[in-house]
């Protein structure tokens, strides 16, 4: 059986995550990589034992016709590279956000539809083991009816030596809508969307907590009213406790996970009985779950599992869809709706 082939454009840190995930697949061969830096392209090819490397993606795409192109450049380059790939009839798996401007995404979407190409976005947190666990609790009825989702992403972007505030070489995120926070909004948007469904109403607020940083804003909050439930979403660039907490509240249980430390997940469920005794049992149960999750997370780190917990599964599902000629794992319409939500996060006049 013929192996699927792929190429990678952009050889930074996230490209290594893609390549490590692809190497786990038996039916895929990465035939070439490309980066503007020859040294980075060559180093990546050497490290992952890939036969060819390029510094010009157009020459690479002239030499190869891969089944899938991984676009892992900085966001500002996504549109032009993806457009060239889709125009050539090539399937694309692109890092988030696919485009900086929503209108550019719509162009790519149209191009993908016209040329019958896949246009996938790396929405790896959908595949995160903790999110899948929570979705199972929800679908199996253990969580009860869904009442609310709380997403709180804390990353200290304003601290000393932060690459986000490096004034020697401005971070690419500063060119995004919402500045540095814009780099994280796609994750927040699609994760909220997974639970809320299409958005009916939205309120946002942005703030600058640290006055002497070059960032335009460093705090973001949103209230989202969706078709299925409501969500509170937040990004804090000032908290020194980094974490990506997701709490899903149902009528019978709430489940909470830190997505930076999988598979640590804590659940608190409704238990009938004497309140004081139930509270004690709940505490023991919760402590046990946290301890088990923490130990497992420690061993996962020793085992080389990165924080991109869901990426290998997303990539595996993407190639499976290609091989079996099925619809892409995350439907293009859902990617559109989350891109639209990001656009609305950053355009207050678009909120209802």
């Amino acid at each position, binding site marked *: 059986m013929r192996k699927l082939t792929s190429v990678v454009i952009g050889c930074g840190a996230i490209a290594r995550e893609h390549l490590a995930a692809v190497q786990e697949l038996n039916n895929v061969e990465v035939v070439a990589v490309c980066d503007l830096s*020859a040294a*980075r392209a060559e*180093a990546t090819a050497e490290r992952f034992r890939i036969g060819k490397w390029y510094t010009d993606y157009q020459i690479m795409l002239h030499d190869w016709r891969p089944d899938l192109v991984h676009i892992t450049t900085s966001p500002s380059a996504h549109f032009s590279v993806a457009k060239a790939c889709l125009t050539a009839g090539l399937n694309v798996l692109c890092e988030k956000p696919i485009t900086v401007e929503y209108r550019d995404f719509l162009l790519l979407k149209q191009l993908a539809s016209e040329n019958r190409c896949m246009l996938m976005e790396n929405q790896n947190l959908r595949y995160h083991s903790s999110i899948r666990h929570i979705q199972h609790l929800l679908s199996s009825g253990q969580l009860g009816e869904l009442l609310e989702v709380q997403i709180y992403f804390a990353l200290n972007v304003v601290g000393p*030596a932060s690459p986000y505030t490096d004034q*020697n070489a401005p971070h690419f995120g500063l060119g995004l809508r919402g500045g540095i926070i814009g780099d994280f909004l796609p994750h927040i948007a699609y994760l909220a969307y997974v639970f809320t469904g299409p958005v009916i109403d939205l309120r946002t607020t942005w703030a600058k907590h640290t006055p002497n940083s070059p960032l335009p804003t460093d705090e973001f909050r949103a209230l989202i009213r969706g078709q299925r439930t409501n969500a509170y979403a937040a990004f804090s660039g000032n908290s020194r406790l980094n974490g990506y907490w997701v709490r899903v509240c149902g009528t019978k249980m709430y489940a909470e996970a830190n997505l930076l430390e999988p598979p640590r997940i804590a659940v608190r469920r409704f238990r009938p009985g004497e309140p004081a005794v139930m509270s004690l049992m709940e505490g023991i149960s919760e402590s046990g779950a946290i301890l088990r999750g923490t130990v497992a997370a420690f061993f996962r780190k*020793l085992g*080389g599992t990165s924080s991109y917990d869901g990426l290998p599964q997303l990539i595996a599902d993407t190639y499976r869809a290609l091989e079996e000629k099925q619809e892409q794992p995350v439907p293009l319409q859902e990617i559109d709706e989350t891109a639209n939500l990001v656009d609305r996060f950053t355009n207050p006049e678009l909120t209802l």
Partner: protein
Amino acid sequence: MRVLVTGAGGFLGRHVVARLLVRGHNVRAIVRPASPRPSWGPDVEVFYADFRAHDNLISVFDGIDAVIHMAAATSGNEDVQFTSTVVGTERLLEAMSRTAVKRLILVSSLVVYDWARARGTMAETTPLLLDPYDMGAYTIAKVWQERVASSMTGTHGWDLTIMRPGFIWGRNHAEIAGMGRRFGPVQLMFGPFTRLPLSHVVNCADAVVASMENPNSSGLTFNVVDADDIRVWRYVREYWHRSGRGGIPVPLPYVVGLGIAQFASFVSRILFGNKGKLPSLLAPRRFQQQFKPLRFSNDTLRAKLGWTPPLDFQACLARTYAPDPDVEYNAVKRT
């Protein structure tokens, strides 16, 4: 000579600039835009640039006779260090290739050697790391920085000299990796009698400038160490005594530390295959890079350039721990 110095605002860079001035050279120093100007006089021309972001570097080579390239990241994750050190070098040298400048001195590091394969005395003939990707970010970046410089030298016919210092130390930089690891008050010393490849910053700057001035150094590589007679135990003792920081010394034979690392690596391979990730103390190749008992030689520097370190260990100590913060810096001018 008119010399372009990259990384001039760094620890070694400031000493190299001072040494160049003493030797009567004209200096154009490149420092990062957000960095304050070091305490140089008007005789140092300062050019503010970060190679990751600065697009037009050709003009910095105007009128330049030689380049001393020291700019490199010493902290940050692999991506940060690769971008700063390797991609930055690539951009600088691409600009240089469009000029008439031919003389390049690259300050690299002993980390580019394959310490696991090194035997006896580490010399310039010691095998280089061929597969650096399980090493630390700094090592990967320095290996590739040398590869880029060598490759472009081959393409453009430059006169390249590579300098590979050991542990560069001096005032406010006396704590070095070879001392071991500190856990609270406990100082773990792996191989207390292991010889340290020390290169005091004053001596190192002198060697860099001497190699630039000497045409015989073209095409050569030099390990830059003062001597190898100072051992871990003595260095730590001097550090504690002179810095006023004490601790509880816990010496551990090198073979015991390496044995623990090899056992941890074995268990990791059993449990996780090749994907396992261990801290540097438990990764055998990285452990060896920091603590392997070897001898270190500056014979090539002595033989080819007639260089000897201007300061002995006692003088280095005196300057490093002197109460007057300007003593070490001024020492560069006197040597």
